[in-house]
């Protein structure tokens, strides 16, 4: 299982890195899916099967599909790629790269000073998660449902055509 963890972790990182550097939106999305699937495997090896399955169903199966849907609707095909002008010039990468590197370095310092423990590895199944969700966290669940409803209404309004902005479409 340990090996599997490191393997999946590496895949997740690699795929994420490729995802953010692709010109082609569709390829980037596929790499994100791979990254998410790898993350699901990471969860599985850490004894969180419920999280792993949710990661696939909701993240890969619904959220990214929405992205794919939008990409297909906008038809951001290969011909759209050249429009990402100035994307890969090294200058654009320096500032963000340094910032992210510093942040990562700091996090590494924090983690190495405190993260020497082994992960327990005992599976925490859906039953325990459900008990926690609808026990101590029930208020948060309600709030989350409000958030979803708000998102639903907002998306429905925004997607309901150009009611406010006239002949834009």
């Amino acid at each position: 299982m340990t090996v599997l963890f490191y393997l999946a972790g590496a895949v997740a990182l690699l795929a994420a890195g490729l995802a953010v550097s692709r010109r082609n939106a569709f390829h980037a999305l596929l790499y994100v899916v791979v990254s998410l699937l790898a993350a699901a495997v990471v969860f599985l090896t850490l004894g969180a099967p419920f999280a792993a399955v949710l990661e696939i169903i909701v993240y890969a199966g619904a959220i990214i599909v929405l992205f794919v849907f939008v990409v297909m609707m906008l038809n951001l095909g290969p011909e759209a790629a050249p429009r990402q002008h100035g994307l890969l010039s090294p200058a654009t990468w320096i500032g963000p790269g340094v910032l992210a590197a510093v942040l990562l370095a700091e996090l590494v310092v924090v983690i190495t000073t405190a993260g020497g423990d082994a992960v327990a590895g005992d599976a925490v199944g859906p039953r325990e998660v459900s008990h926690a969700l609808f026990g101590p966290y029930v208020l948060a669940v309600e709030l989350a449902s409000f958030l979803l409803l708000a998102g639903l209404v907002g998306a429905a309004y925004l997607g309901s055509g150009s009611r406010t902005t006239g002949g834009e479409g």
Partner: protein
Amino acid sequence: MTGLLAPLADVALVLGLVLTMAAFLIWYERRLLALWQDRYGPNRVGPFGLLQVVADVIKIFFKEDWVPPFADRTVFVLAPMVIMVAVLMSFAVVPISPEIVVADSSVGVLFILAMSSMTVYASVLGGWASNNKYALLGGLRAAAQMVSYEVFMGISLMGVVVLAGSFRLGDIVEAQSGLWNCVPQFLGMLVFAVAGVAETKRVPFDLPEAEAELVAGYHTEYSGMKFGMFFVGEYLGVTLISALIVLLYFGGWRGPWLPPVVWFLLKTLAVIAVFFLLRASLPRPRFDQLMAYGWKVLLPLALLNLLVTGLVVLS
């Protein structure tokens, strides 16, 4: 070594069984359709035309493996593999009998849902990579249809899960020792079956590949072995949904006299026959009708089913 060999044997057994089944289904469907339509169907190659499948496979293998020059090559090749892999992965948690199961996962039902949500990518990737407007429209339709119906499918399943108190398919079958779920969960079964038909894009919900409108939908540009994978993937999907219906609602391998495996296969074939009967009898709806039907009929029904089940279990 037995610790390693036993799972491998299971894997081989299940894979063989499932693939054989898928191949057999092609003949099974054609013969059944012919029966209902008062004609013979394939009956020349081998006994009862059983070897017709073999002939078809040989033909597909020897066809030119052609990738359109305007397609996104990598994704184009990847798409048909996704459906095969996802569906075959799903069979890993399906118990064919009490003993024969590859991975007896504690989140089996969820795992199957996860894998079925992955099959969306096959149609979408295929449709997009073909760089063809019919294929693109087919892919869009597939994405919207499958993401929507997966929701009802998941919710309709939950009634069964509530009754069994477990996501493990083995536990769910065990929980039906007294009464099969098709009685208390009749509503859930109906919703699940309809959603299943939509998930596998079978008639009447085959709008992503509706030949009258979109030529062949998302796999318009596919031919040869890659088309074969889509084709087999669809039959695998039918098998999977039927197996699930059997496991979740018709007591799985349970039955008198005969061994469990036989019971399971018989029940599955019976359910598959119903799938084919649907194809033989129902017209295809419009796409907006399909979506409206899902969100305005199936979703409330599935929620109602879950609610009532929850109330009964809790009280």
